[in-house]
């Protein structure tokens, strides 16, 4: 069994990064590997906003990833500093369910428990 940390740095909107990460995580869980945590940095932190409003015909990659992580109890963390610089409000009621505020320090400490880091 391998312990993975997954790192997202691209915006969830109209890039394929979140979808790729979700597929990797699903396949990893299915093969009995562990996804120790998923960390959102740079523009990926935008996924944590509860105010995301997409046209109805557009898949919401941020919500799909959060659903999977809740179901599998995979910590889905986003970087507070990156979020503050991008104007995300960190009030709990303005955050998407399933996304947890974290510092780079938490990511770093978790990273030392993981065999592999995969970036999308």
């Amino acid at each position, binding site marked *: 069994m391998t312990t993975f940390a997954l790192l997202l740095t691209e915006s969830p909107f*109209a890039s394929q990064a979140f979808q790729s990460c979700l597929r990797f995580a699903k396949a990893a869980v299915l093969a009995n590997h562990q996804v120790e945590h998923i960390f959102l940095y740079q523009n990926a932190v935008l996924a944590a906003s509860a105010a995301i409003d997409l046209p109805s015909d557009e*898949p919401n990659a941020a919500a799909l990833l959060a659903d999977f992580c809740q179901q599998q109890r995979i910590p889905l963390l986003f970087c507070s500093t990156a979020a503050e610089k991008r104007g995300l409000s960190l009030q709990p009621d303005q955050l998407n369910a399933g996304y947890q505020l974290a510092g780079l320090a938490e990511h770093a400490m978790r990273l030392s428990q993981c065999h592999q880091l995969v970036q999308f």
Partner: protein
Amino acid sequence: MSQPTLIWLQSSPYNSSAAREALDYTLALAAVDCPVQLLLSGPAVCLLLPNNDFSAALQLKDCSKLLGLLPLYDLAAPLVCQDSLHQYQIDPKQLHHAITRLSRQQLAERLALCQQVVTF
């Protein structure tokens, strides 16, 4: 000022939101009767490839469908860089969308006819 605004898309189709938002921008200008002309070059010509299936396989919005809306807004067929088509080995006969192929020299001439240019 009846010279069209040129919307020049050169970015990768699905690694960022550039392609999606360039097409939204084009259609929005067309909707208020701004004269507008779309130009595809570089990796953006891959948007023209037929037989793709983003929605089902990747849970991703299929941007190429927006190209199909251009005629509904009375827009001219997109200008497409011939060299880029050749580079990506795309056969113009197999495309689902009408296009106008241009050599580099012809692109320079068309560019000179547009007063405003927006690049994505």
